[in-house]
């Protein structure tokens, strides 16, 4: 296992400690629990709080999107597993400024059940919550079961937009509606080339014969829509972007934001190959890329692979995307 770690069981607490030591001006722990992180200026009185969370191993997801114009707090689980309802609840209390709290996270069973439980606890203390789930992974379910889809890198767009809405003072219902609207217009698909090794078990997250790739892979190595021989960058982009355009029903005249996301081990150079082809495909179809994002936005430790996300833009969404934001891992000005 080629990892720079100490005791595997300390992995999560230690990297969170590293984040806190590096960015004390941006984030803090409200209590003793390193698994709860909120923006340094939380709570913001009168503003809606946004709590996210999920398993570790996805940096900059989720912890990386806690900051101004983004999420207000995060509950941090072990590698690839849910935070506890207690931790979510603690984050909720720490970011509540009296205007309620939006739970915005990816659609995974363990997370959903724990967030729901936390929502019940919050309700008992008089904190109003709403839930919006990232469910952008088009390969995880067919379109008619879209509410059951998994959430992957495309949740970045929802963070950005909902965070901007909360920052400008929208109500809880409005912030939730913004998040829901962005989720509804986001689609993502990924390919996996090599698994990650889980620090706790030392085992690979999935098995893949040499020279093959998994198309539609999930962010924990979940099987995708099919497995086949490794294709060229252009072929991969053709398949993925084709599927995304069909799913979102986009055609000539549409405007989009594109996110080409690396899953961990794939070099930035290769992401730019995917971006290049994506740009060509969209240009051919008369679709304009208004905002490109290329880099690591949601990873799976050192998994090799990449995903492409599209967000259909209208003026409202674009304005929220362009609003200022500042976290340890992302800034927009």
């Amino acid at each position, binding site marked *: 296992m080629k990892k720079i770690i100490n005791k595997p069981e300390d992995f999560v607490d230690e990297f969170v400690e590293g984040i806190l030591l590096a960015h004390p001006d941006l984030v803090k722990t409200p209590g003793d629990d390193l698994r709860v992180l909120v923006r340094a200026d939380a709570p913001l009185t009168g503003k809606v709080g946004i709590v996210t969370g999920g398993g570790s191993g996805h940096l900059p997801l989720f912890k990386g999107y806690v900051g101004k114009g983004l999420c207000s707090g995060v509950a941090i689980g*072990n590698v690839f597993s849910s935070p*506890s309802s207690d*931790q979510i609840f603690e984050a909720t209390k720490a970011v509540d400024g009296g205007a309620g709290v939006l739970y915005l996270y990816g659609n995974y069973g363990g997370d959903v059940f724990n967030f729901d439980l936390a929502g019940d606890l919050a309700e008992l203390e008089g904190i109003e919550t709403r839930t919006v789930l990232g469910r952008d992974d088009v390969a995880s379910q067919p379109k008619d079961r879209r509410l059951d889809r998994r959430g992957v890198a495309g949740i970045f767009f929802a963070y950005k937009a909902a965070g901007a809405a909360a920052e400008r003072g929208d109500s809880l219902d409005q912030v939730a509606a913004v998040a829901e609207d962005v989720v509804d217009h986001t689609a993502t698909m990924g390919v996996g080339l090599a698994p990650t090794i889980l620090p706790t078990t030392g085992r690979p997250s999935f098995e893949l014969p040499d020279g093959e790739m998994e198309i539609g892979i999930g962010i924990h190595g979940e099987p995708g829509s099919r497995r086949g021989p490794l294709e060229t960058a252009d072929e991969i982009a053709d398949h993925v972007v084709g599927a995304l355009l069909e799913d979102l029903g986009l055609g000539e005249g549409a405007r989009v934001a594109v996110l080409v996301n690396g899953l961990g081990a794939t070099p930035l150079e290769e992401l730019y190959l995917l971006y290049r082809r994506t740009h060509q495909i969209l240009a051919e179809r008369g679709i304009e890329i208004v905002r490109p994002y290329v880099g690591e936005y949601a990873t799976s430790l050192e998994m090799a692979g990449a995903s492409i996300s599209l967000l259909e833009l209208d003026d409202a969404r674009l304005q929220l995307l362009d609003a200022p934001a500042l976290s340890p891992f992302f800034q927009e000005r």
Partner: protein
Amino acid sequence: MQGTNLNEHIRGSLEILVESADELRDLDQALGDGDLGITITAGSHAVVAELEKLSPTATPTEIARTCAKAFASANPSTMAALVAGALLNGSRTWEGKDEIGLAEATEFVTAAASSISQRGKSEVGDKTILDGIAAVAEALRTSSDSTEATDAAVRAAGRAVEETAGLQSRRGRASWLQERSIGLPDPGATAFQRLVEAWSRVSAATH
């Protein structure tokens, strides 16, 4: 069974249950992420620790809620959250009761099953722990005394697990395996079977 007995009975059962940790880890490794062994071990130890601290005058409802809270946070996961929710829902049916008999047990398990179905958006046949809990609720409902009920529960839990082996997982991580999930029993349902068996062994020992 009153508070103190219930408290002891739960602790005794959990001490037996943890012996199945490796089996559950392996099953969850085949169909999921392999943490179910840890969830059961850490969760059981946390529950036992909290129950030991509990006053002897604690009501059955308080006991069930203590179990729920301790289990929820020990190793956060699907099982931890669903079981905690189920225990909380069950505990509502015991509100105001001091004595737990077959009728109360039946109500509790039925409420637990309904919580899991609702929270998990799952139905019997989805190959989850719900298959086991629903089968046991039914077995309790159709038994006439506690001894008969315990045996029937053990049989029902075991049969439910066997049936899950033939099914395709429709919920949780195992569902991502699609057809590849067929052939192996559901880890959550197996955990519940081991709990029911442990409960029955403790019952046999105390009678």
